[in-house]
Each structure stands twice: as structure tokens, then as C-alpha cells.
């Protein structure tokens, strides 16, 4: 049963676009996805006739709940002027658009379609924070919900198990938060573009101007330790361990490998693609890793013939700081229990040996859940094509990047390896 998987036909990525990620009171899913589509269209070096798109696969988690509107496949096909092209909405919680990407890859690999638009959208910010938290928790497993767990709560519990096993602490998670905030100002699309250092300085400056008590934070971690500045959401997860609420959309254009040069002289190719299911806190193999990530990674590595060492940089699903720590171990970049030391040593920083979340990650780029998987692949696209500007990974011969997307509390994980030949 355990076979090395391969695509029946090679698949190339030839275009990519995303909306801004933020809380937009004045824009809905149609507006956001159209913005992403326009940018994608403009990104195709040799031009795209939208009439050549054969089909759409759209990831969306829970606009049904957040926006009281379902059926986003057909609605978006119409709003982009692509009717009667078939459109399928895919749901895999926060991994929805990575699953949409996979469906698009398979549709092309099978030979059925030649040109496919894949992407995702989420419109979350119109409801209160409590309602959004309730909506996200729809993707937790039923037993977790009945026990009162929220998403930050599940990841908080995982953090306590990891801390106990390996001797890490909140201080190590702060390294991840600080790193993400350091990368974000270099990403024009990021929702939060401010370093922790600058947040600290501006709060001190504001306190001085208002004549109120001036905080005496000695450094970034001192600020993050302050329970007023960084309150607990679900201990040990604090505000700055958690990604924000975001609206946004992202899409990519996939074509059969032999057609790629009609669209661009610089396509990316799907080298490896993996997806797996996992279990909740009550039946997971272990609470210090995500089994679905490990299986998805194994599948993608075996398909590509690549190893973790070959991955030059990666976007990983840092919905919470602890999640990034588990992923960099589960993907094989660092040994179990060694990830937090690697982070503390700066190995995952932009200039480190394995840059992680150069986009600022979900923490700072934003996390419109259904759009995130596609947006992570856009970061890989921009890095590999040398379009990432000041946040470009400073490695010569940048050729292989990857994205890891997680849904729910680890129930769905994907790992996608892209290659520039």
C-alpha cells in the first residue's frame, strides 16, 4: 500500500496574486478575490486570456458562518466573468486553499484540464472577536469544543505538553514572535508591519506624551512578559502568540508543465505534494507533534526525492507561536525537541540557515483562513522568482522552497514543495 506517488503529468505555476490582508469593513469575498485575480492576471509574464481558464478550485473555510453566505465556487466564477467554467469550493478548515491547490494540481495532472485557477478567500472581520473564535472552533473536534477548548486553548495545551517534555518555555516562543515581527515590515502585503522593538518604543513615547506612567521595558522580551501589554488569551498563549483576524484572498494559476513557457519563461514546478489527516487532543499519537504534518511531509519528500536539507526556506502554519515550533521539527528541519534551540540561535531568521516565514507568517502577514494556503505558496513564488524585495532570502541559487498548511487542530495538514528549474 505504501507507494511513492507521482503526478501523471507535470504541473507548473505561472501566475499568482493576492489581495491586501487586513480587516476590511467595506469589502466582501467577491471584492477580495477579484483584487487577487486582477493581480494574478497581471503577474502572468506573457499574458493570460481569462477565457483560457478551464476550471476553478476555491478554498473557503467558513464564510457560511462568518458572512452567512455559502456556495462560493459559483459566486466567484460569476464575479470573475468565468461562467460557465466549473468552480468547486473546497473546505479543509485553515488548510482549505492548500487543498484547493492540490485539487487543481490533480485536475491538470490527470490531463482533464490544462489551465486551472486555484485559490482561497475568507471574510472574517464583520463579526465580534467572540463570534469569530466560535466560528474557528467549528474546526476543532467535537470533544475539544465540549471541554471548552478554543483554538488558542488547544495550542496552549500543546505548548504545556511540549514545555514539559523538552524544557522549553514561553521565552522561546517569544523568539518566534520577535522574528515574525522583524520580517513583516519588509512585506508590503503584511497586516502588521511593525517590529516588537518599534511597538515597544511607540508605546513608551505615547505614555510620555500623555504624561501617564512610562513602562520600563528593558527589551522586546521584557515587553512580551508584561501581562498588561501582552495579556493571556489561553495560557500559555498570550496575545502576541496568536495570529490576527483577517480578511483576504489569494489565487494562483496552474498549467500543464508542457504549456508553461506559453505563459512565462520563469515558471515554478510542483516538485512534491503531500496531505494527511490527523486526530484531536484526545486521540493524537502524541501531544508534542502533529502526525498529519509528518505524514504529509513524508509523502512530499518521497515524491520529490528531496530531503529536509534541500528545502532552502519555508512558510509554515504559525497560527500560534507554538505551532511554528512543532512544524519546523515535524518537517524534519530540526530534530524533535531541538527546534526551540534553533530558533533561539537565529537559524530561522531571514539571514539564518533555514529562513522560516519570511512573509511575517500568519502572525503578521495575517490569516484569512481559507486564503492562507494559497498565500503561503505566493510567498514561495515571490522568493523563488526573486520578487521578494528586501525580504528576499539571501541564499545564492535559490531554487527550492516549500509551504506547510494546517487545518483545525492538526486534522488536516499539507506540505508542498515548489522548484525553479
Amino acid at each position, binding site marked *: 500500500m505504501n507507494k511513492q506517488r507521482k503526478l501523471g503529468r507535470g504541473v507548473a505555476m505561472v501566475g499568482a496574486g493576492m489581495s491586501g490582508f487586513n480587516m476590511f469593513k467595506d469589502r466582501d469575498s467577491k471584492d477580495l478575490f477579484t483584487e487577487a485575480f486582477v493581480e494574478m492576471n497581471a503577474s502572468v509574464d506573457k499574458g493570460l486570456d481569462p477565457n483560457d481558464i478551464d476550471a476553478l478550485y476555491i478554498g473557503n473555510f467558513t464564510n457560511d458562518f462568518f458572512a452567512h453566505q455559502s456556495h462560493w465556487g459559483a459566486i466567484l466564477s460569476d464575479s470573475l466573468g468565468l461562467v460557465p467554467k466549473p468552480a468547486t469550493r473546497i473546505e479543509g478548515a485553515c488548510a482549505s486553499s492548500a487543498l484547493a491547490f492540490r485539487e487543481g494540481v490533480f485536475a491538470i495532472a490527470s490531463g482533464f484540464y490544462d489551465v486551472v485557477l486555484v485559490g482561497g478567500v475568507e471574510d472574517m472581520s464583520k463579526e465580534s472577536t*467572540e463570534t469569530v473564535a466560535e466560528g474557528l472552533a467549528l474546526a476543532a473536534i467535537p470533544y475539544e469544543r465540549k471541554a471548552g477548548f478554543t483554538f488558542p486553548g488547544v495550542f496552549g495545551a500543546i505548548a504545556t505538553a511540549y514545555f*514539559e517534555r523538552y524544557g522549553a518555555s514561553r521565552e522561546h516562543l517569544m523568539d518566534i514572535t520577535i522574528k515574525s515581527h522583524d520580517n513583516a515590515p519588509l512585506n508590503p502585503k503584511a497586516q502588521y508591519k511593525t517590529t516588537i522593538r518599534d511597538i515597544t518604543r511607540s508605546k513608551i513615547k505615547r505614555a510620555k506624551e500623555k504624561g501617564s506612567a512610562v513602562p520600563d521595558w528593558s527589551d522586546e522580551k521584557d515587553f512580551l512578559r508584561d501581562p498588561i501589554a501582552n495579556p493571556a488569551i489561553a495560557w500559555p498563549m498570550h496575545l502576541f502568540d496568536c495570529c490576527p483576524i483577517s480578511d483576504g484572498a489569494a489565487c494562483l494559476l496552474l498549467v500543464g508543465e508542457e504549456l508553461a513557457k506559453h505563459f512565462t519563461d520563469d515558471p515554478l514546478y510542483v516538485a512534491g505534494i503531500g496531505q494527511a489527516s490527523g486526530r484531536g487532543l*484526545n486521540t493524537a499519537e502524541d501531544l508534542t507533534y502533529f502526525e498529519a504534518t509528518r505524514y504529509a511531509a513524508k509523502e512530499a519528500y518521497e515524491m520529490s526525492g528531496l530531503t529536509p536539507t534541500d528545502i532552502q526556506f519555508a512558510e509554515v502554519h504559525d497560527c500560534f507561536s507554538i505551532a511554528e515550533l512543532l512544524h519546523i521539527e515535524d518537517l524534519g528541519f530540526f530534530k524533535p525537541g531541538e527546534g526551540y534551540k534553533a530558533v533561539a540561535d537565529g537559524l530561522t531568521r531571514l539571514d539564518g540557515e533555514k529562513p522560516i516565514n519570511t512573509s511575517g507568517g500568519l502572525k503578521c502577514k495575517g490569516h484569512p483562513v481559507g486564503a492562507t494556503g494559497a498565500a503561503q505558496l505566493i510567498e514561495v513564488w515571490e522568493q523563488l522568482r526573486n520578487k521578494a524585495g528586501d525580504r528576499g532570502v539571501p541564499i545564492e541559487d535559490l531554487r527550492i522552497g516549500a509551504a506547510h498548511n494546517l487545518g483545525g487542530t492538526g486534522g488536516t495538514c499539507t506540505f508542498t514543495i515548489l522548484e525553479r528549474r
Partner: protein
Amino acid sequence: MADRPISDYQFERFLDEDKLMGARCVGCGALFVPPRAICTKCHRSEMEWVETTGEGHLVAFTCIAIGPPAMIEEGYDRNNPYCSGAVELTEGPRVVARIEGVDTLHPETIKIGMPVKVMFLQQGAGESRKTVLGFTPVDKN
């Protein structure tokens, strides 16, 4: 007891009766709490109810300051967080539950590995009243 169907619904009716029940595979003996209608280890489908001791130890937890609407209605908030956790039962299975009788404003006092025993919490009132699985430290009672 033995003739009740294996389901989450019946699991919760047992909670109403202050019983923490699991389903055991008649074939391989694997135990599932909450129950499963088929054995996910050997895929046989002959399962039987068994009552657990309700004893175990804490393996992970969180103190939640911002809860869902149902918990806010119960009076939990930033100043009064509640604890949810994972407990490994003496019989082996891991369950998720509310953890009561711990100092949620000082989570560093809550220790992984501490022995806990089952308790049956009543949540809501009237028609929406239900029993919720909970655990509490053994040495505090």
C-alpha cells in the same frame, strides 16, 4: 447498560448518571473513551461498554481567558479564566475535559503529571442543562 448503542449520545447519557464509560473492542481489547462504534485499531465492529475508574493524570492544559459565548454566559472571562485539559486515564485512553479546583489565575501552580479524578459538571439551566466531563486534582478533595 450493555444493550445501549455505542454512540456519543449514549456516552453523554452515562455522564448524566455520573459514569465515565468507554467502548472496548471484543476482538483486540482496545479501549476508547469516548466510545467508538468500530475498533479503529483492528476494524472489527463488536464493541462493549465498560466503566472506567475515572482516575488518571493531567498531561496538558490551558487556562482560557477568552472563551466561547457559552462559557462567557457561565461567568468566565479575563478575570476568571477556566481550565481545559487532557487527562490520561489509568486504563490508557486520553480524554479532554474541564479541569476544576485549580488556580487558573496562577497557571504555573498547575502541574502536568498531577493525579486527577473524574467529576461531572452541570452546565446551563432548564432545557439546555447538560453534564460536562471534568476532572479535579485528587489531593484537593
